[in-house]
């Protein structure tokens, strides 16, 4: 291992390599690798793309190509500690989902795609979350919050103020 500064820690490299036996090609590990980096660093900055490509025997442009296809991976700066998606598709929208997205924007003082100043939350809109039975629905980290109301949004925002990190996951 050269002594030069690297973005991917040894741990992270190990976690990426652990996916190799599951697939007949290294290329198939692009998406798992992007997810691992995104989870640990909160974004996938361009130097990380180069390092992932090195691990997977790909040209960096090939990794960048995949990354940019999905609107999922941020590159400029880390997202907030919790990533929140509010659904805007039909089953949610027809039960007030878009107004609730707007309300959450106001409460957090951000627009969809932005991160709050304290780095607590990144807010995004989502297309159908597959939870239309619970419409309007939002996903906060691992936690699905259904039958969303202004009160539930207030409680969610209050929970953020109380403690850092993601809200407890509902299992």
């Amino acid at each position, binding site marked *: 291992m050269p002594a030069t500064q690297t973005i991917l820690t040894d741990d992270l490299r190990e976690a990426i390599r652990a996916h190799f036996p599951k697939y007949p090609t290294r290329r198939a590990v*692009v*998406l798992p690798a992007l997810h691992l980096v995104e989870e640990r660093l909160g974004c996938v900055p361009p130097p990380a793309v180069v390092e992932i490509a090195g691990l997977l025997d790909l040209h960096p442009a090939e990794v960048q190509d995949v990354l940019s296809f999905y*609107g*999922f991976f941020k590159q400029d700066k880390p997202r907030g500690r919790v990533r929140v998606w509010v659904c805007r598709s039909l089953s949610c929208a*027809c039960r007030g989902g878009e107004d609730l997205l707007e309300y959450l924007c106001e409460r957090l003082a951000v627009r969809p795609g932005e991160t709050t100043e304290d780095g607590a939350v990144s807010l995004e809109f989502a297309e159908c979350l*597959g939870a239309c039975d619970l419409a309007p629905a939002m996903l906060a980290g691992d936690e699905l919050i259904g039958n969303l109301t202004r009160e539930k949004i207030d409680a969610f925002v209050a929970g953020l103020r109380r403690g850092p990190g993601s809200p407890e996951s509902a*299992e």
Partner: protein
Amino acid sequence: MREPVAEFEPVLLANVGKENSHTLAAYEAAGGYRALKQALREKTPGDILNLVRASNLRGRGGAGFPTGLKWSFLPEGHPGPIYLCVNADESEPGTFCNRVLMEDDPHQVLEGTILSSYATRASVAYIYLRYEYTKSLRRLERAIAECRAAGYLGRNILGSAFSLEITIHRGAGAYICGEETGLIESLEGRRAWPRIKPPFPAVEGLFRKPTVVNNVETLACVAHIVARGADWFKSMGTPADPHNPRDPGSYGPKLYEVSGHVNRPGVYEAPLGLPCRELIDGFAGGVWKGRKAKAVVPGGLSTGLLRGDELDTKLDFDGPICAGCLGLGTAGTIVLDESYPIIDFLYNSCRFFAHESCGQCTPCREGTQWALELVSRIKAGRGRLRDLDLLAEIGATIGIIPGTTICGLADGAAWPIKTAINKFRDELEETIKRTNPTGYGQVEPPPALTDRPACIAANR
């Protein structure tokens, strides 16, 4: 309230809602994995394939393609590997039954996957799971570990010559990854651009090897067909048309999702062919607030709209087609009440498909965007009656059916437009006239929504 389909005992949802239904112990206590044990002891892969073919099981993922027929396209005597992809990308608006199965009864999905892998001689199965299904992920991971420990997965399953590994592969928030060749490309680590077919995946699929892609619910059905037989499966549903030898009919139990303006949104199980009205009034407790249904999406957003007076439509593979919709799709029903503006439906639908088009085919990429702009203009009070004709033209020209695109996303974008205009033209015209009283009759190319004179000045 009427008791819906009284004599029918749920099969796919039998364990859902019971305590610890996601555990191996609960699944085995309810008779789970007996079919697998028996099949590995007594049946060849060919036997299972014939059984599934005899059941006339049709895919639950949207296209309704006969599963046994799809499997029979795999090359015979192939040295392998053969792959099975479990399509768990479930992203069609209005659809969530795969989520319920994976969260509350993951072993049912796994038993179906293991049996289907045995039948197709697949040695590796990839579950392509949409990223947002975090609880499904936890439940599936746990269930796979339990299976491994119990000898249902891994090398020489239950002492047989059959070996199988199952790997979960997480998506990254793109609807197009549910299209089977988009799924394959995504799994291979490329952008999820659907492939031109043929070659079909059965011949050249994942990693250029023979591949079967099946939906989660389809695979769950396979487990029950092996356990109970093809005759049991064919004892329910809408029989094939005896005058049409190519009609496979609509057999078996089906999960119906209901959402939107109903009292009890949820997933319900009934034999294929449930009338739409029965689903809404019987299972879902009727339209909310005592209102009437203006329009109903019968099978996921792509399938278009039924009018409120078309609710006798049977939700089997043919019913929605006879009512002018794209098909049964995912049986994800979205109910819109009498107060909901059709222009809002159009806007929501056009925005979805413009956002999710993968951009590979020009008619889809440009058509979905253009449709969104036309509908946005109408919503902004600048619509013209002529815009409805333009929208209809887009609806008629994008998709596999008119032959202009690679995959069915464009057909799914077209059908909501076509059905909204065919079935609700009066309301849409009224909306345009009311919101643009001075300009609705214009036929000249209108100025863009941006400030046109300023743009022209800036370009000089």
